[in-house]
């Protein structure tokens, strides 16, 4: 892959906002004792955060930093 790679900060910021939304929903689910839905939120939030973080690390490595 010859071209330079950048980091999609706009998508990452929106992703962080959606994680905040998920935390808000999780609180409601915990209050209503809906543990299954809480696990769904946790899995997706972890997926989003880890994809963003590892994507950033990979981009740094691709750019030779």
């Amino acid at each position, binding site marked *: 892959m010859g071209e330079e790679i950048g980091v*999609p900060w706009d998508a990452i910021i929106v*992703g962080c906002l959606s994680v905040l*939304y998920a935390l808000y929903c999780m609180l409601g689910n915990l209050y209503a004792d809906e543990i299954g839905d809480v696990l769904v939120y946790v899995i997706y939030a972890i997926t989003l955060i880890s994809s963003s973080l590892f*994507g950033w690390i990979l981009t740094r490595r*691709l750019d030779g930093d």
Partner: protein
Amino acid sequence: MEYAGKLIRGYLLSYSGLLAVSLIFSYLANNYSSTPFITESPTLFHGLIVAPSEEMFFRYFVPLLLMYFGFPYLLGSCMVAAPLFAAAHYWAYNNNIYAMLSAFTAGCWNSMIVYKYSGREPFNFSPGLLCAMLGHASYNLTVTYMADRMLEISVITALLWALFEIYFRRVEE
């Protein structure tokens, strides 16, 4: 202006395309009747975390990992990430083959959206990835709350995309 133009066009094209893909496979699944998929998965209600998370993983991280090993973005995204995305939907929707095919096609569609509407030099996934996220989130919410309006919404958003495409091409010229 260039960023806004790409964001609007990419979002509209992603949204209308995802609705169209779902409608096509719903027709195929239901022997050409007009009823779209209506699944009862609770994850659809979490549209505002499911869509960004799936797009970040399947349209950003997995293709980027393959790019690290020398694969072009579209090849990695359509040949590896999209089948993984489809497999996840096959499992999530009770081994439904049409849901799997719909997810594979939708994954390829959003991959093309990301590639087409992202900046070059550097290829920064921006705003293409955000377009895919917003389109996917809108699709999830539409299927959950307005499934009977999918065809109309798909046509209207496709027409809006065409209008914005014409407008922004003229502005760029």
